[in-house]
């Protein structure tokens, strides 16, 4: 029985944290996020550090590590609001491992691990329905391929992706279509959290070859959704800790009525409650991440407990951390607002609390 990290994982954490401090401080995050494009030099750097092929099997050029290791990276990335599309890339790797054949894995995964391509995964079109019917993009079988005409909305990191895996219905079956950015047009969509760029992908009578179409079962769709929820919750843990620490520091320094405000119970108790919440969804998330490689059948319940907790708790933490700062927290210049926006972004991604808690009820036999 050991519910803690290994020394190697601790070193990985230190490495990511150093990278975020040295190469991607929040001033730089702001600049990069405003530009909306990925700094390819940084992308190459994290590829060289191994983070882009962390969970990729060694035979496909990765490190063959687990989702617990990935969690360590995502937690630290989230702490610094890293705008690099690590989550989209990692989920695409899992999608390829899930639906593709050996041939594609051998061709694509080593390139992805080496930083040679940025990839993203787009599952649902409906803004608030994580269900096969929530995929509405449709393709039509044509000779040797599928013709797609229409728009895939809500595609994470679409503007920087070289390749996209897009969920689409063809007749009565769901597929993931492997698409190159050259086959489609992409429109960025303004959204609260600039560190999580999103675009709409337009297909104008695009024909995708049969060998780029991969059947996606309902079970596989659910699996990828659960991995998505695990990944965004891992980032949420780091982000929540960061904004909480920022607010604790402020409360320890800001003097009003001749005392630092952290002395007042109205302030300190709220900060204590936030600590309780963060500790708790962190523990639940670690367990969920562990199940990915060790107890797959437990992932749905485990991740729903974690995301069900984090979705609302982090959103409230985002709001209250601004509130405890007072007017300074409301300014664009102060960093707390960036975390408030992330907390709102996290809430619906791969399922809000209602989605997850209703699922917990079903899985719990109610």
């Amino acid at each position: 029985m050991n519910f803690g990290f290994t020394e190697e994982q601790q070193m990985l954490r230190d490495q990511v944290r150093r990278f975020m401090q040295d190469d991607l401080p929040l001033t730089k995050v702001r600049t990069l996020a405003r530009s909306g494009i990925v700094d390819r030099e940084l992308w190459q750097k994290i590829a060289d550090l191994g983070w882009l092929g962390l969970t990729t099997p060694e035979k496909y050029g990765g490190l063959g590590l687990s989702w617990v290791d990935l969690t360590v990276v995502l937690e630290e990335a989230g702490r610094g609001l890293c705008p690099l599309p690590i989550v989209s890339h990692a989920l695409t790797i899992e999608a390829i491992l899930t639906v593709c054949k050996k041939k594609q894995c051998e061709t694509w995964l080593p390139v992805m691990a080496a930083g040679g391509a940025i990839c993203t995964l787009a599952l649902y079109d409906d803004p608030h329905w994580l269900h096969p019917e929530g995929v509405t993009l449709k393709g039509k079988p044509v000779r040797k391929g599928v013709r797609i005409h229409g728009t895939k909305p809500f595609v994470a990191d679409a503007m920087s992706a070289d390749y996209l895996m897009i969920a689409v219905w063809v007749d009565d079956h769901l597929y993931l279509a492997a698409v190159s950015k050259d086959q489609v047009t992409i429109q960025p969509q303004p959204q609260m959290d600039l560190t999580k760029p999103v675009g709409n992908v337009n297909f104008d009578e695009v024909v995708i070859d049969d060998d780029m179409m991969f059947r996606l079962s309902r079970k596989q769709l659910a699996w990828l959704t659960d991995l998505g929820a695990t990944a965004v919750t891992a980032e949420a843990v780091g982000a929540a800790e960061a904004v909480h620490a920022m607010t604790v520091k402020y409360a320890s320094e800001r003097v009003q009525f001749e005392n630092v405000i952290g002395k007042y119970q109205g302030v300190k108790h709220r900060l204590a409650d936030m600590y309780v919440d963060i500790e708790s969804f962190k523990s639940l998330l670690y367990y969920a991440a562990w199940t990915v490689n060790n107890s797959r059948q437990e992932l749905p319940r485990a991740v729903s407990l974690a995301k069900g907790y984090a979705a609302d708790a982090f959103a409230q933490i985002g709001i209250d951390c601004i509130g405890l700062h007072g007017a300074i927290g409301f300014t664009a210049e102060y960093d707390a607002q960036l975390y408030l926006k992330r907390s709102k972004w996290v809430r619906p991604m791969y399922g809000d609390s209602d989605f997850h808690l209703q699922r917990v009820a079903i899985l719990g036999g109610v």
Partner: protein
Amino acid sequence: MDFDYSTSEEAFRQEVRAFIKDNLPPRSERGPDFLNEWLRKVRARGWVGFSWPKEFGGGGGGLVEQAILREEMSLAKAPPLGTSFMGLAWVGPGIIQYGTQDQKQRFIPDILDSKVTWCTGYSEPNHGSDLASIQCKAVRDGDDYVVNGQKIWTSGAPWAQWIILLVRTASRAESKHKGITCLLVPMNSAGLVVVPIENMAGDRHFAEVFFKDVRVPVANRLGQEGDGWKVTVSALANERSSIGEVTAMFDKLDTLKELVQHTRKNGKPSRNDPAVRRRLATFEMKIAAMKYNGLRYLTKQIRGEPLTSETSVNKLHRASLEIEMDDFAVALTGQAGLHLRGSDNAVDKGTWAKSSLNWPNVVIGGGTPNIQRNIIAERILHLPKD
């Protein structure tokens, strides 16, 4: 990360299960001597005071085995491992840590053998949460202390044989914390009077305890004069891990789900109401959080990393669940939820109604939620004391 247990830990789990199978008959088959027999047997196994050093009669067991033991016992809804609850929870560990050789020999065996029950004399009429300000006074007179003053909210006082008592031996002005001393006092001492208090659930398990010129031999002092605060703080930190608690709470959640299956509201089954379903899931979420928080903290302990006050995290969850789960059951069943044992309309013989009135036992005893928040804010987040 690894949730598997080692071969020897697994073997221990099997040993506990086998013991339970052999020694825990169904309720209907338990004779009048069952509990005494049970206590004797678990004692013989070294499972009472499981983690206490063997030289004092404890089990000398490890943290993981202790967690396994508690989990299995809780899963089997087994009787307690010893009935000297406060003795096992903190009086015993306190005596092992601070007691004299004589005190250890005198008190520890009786605690392990469930022969003696203890109560805890901390709170006073004017000092509950602000424990360090107590006024109950002890003055040295030869080989005795002479105690005068009053304690209150003393759980178990009506039947306990001994009390672990905090008294003031130096004025508050001299030293708020250092002026406190810990004494071990027989409840049948001359001048000690217990007046039970009826609580809102109609029970009388806590009491006022009055001391008028009660003489306590200096030999019954735990630690040095002025060490009382130190002894108390470390004793409170010695509270049991939450593993067994979590199993019991999952169990209670199952009972609650069972209740939901048979309840209707507005003529419709409550189990289909999304608000009801979400509420149950929220309970499950918090209990699971307690479980995995507990395992994370246990891992820290095993690795020898110091725990600061992380246990306050689970105490806050426990407090809110303790109130909310019973209250949810009462609300779920409408008017019938209000009915007590004896009413033809009572739900589950009124157990939900009754326990919905008993939450302060857990929520206020041992530190109110706001005290837990202070502890987290000050000791973990390092915010200033208020």
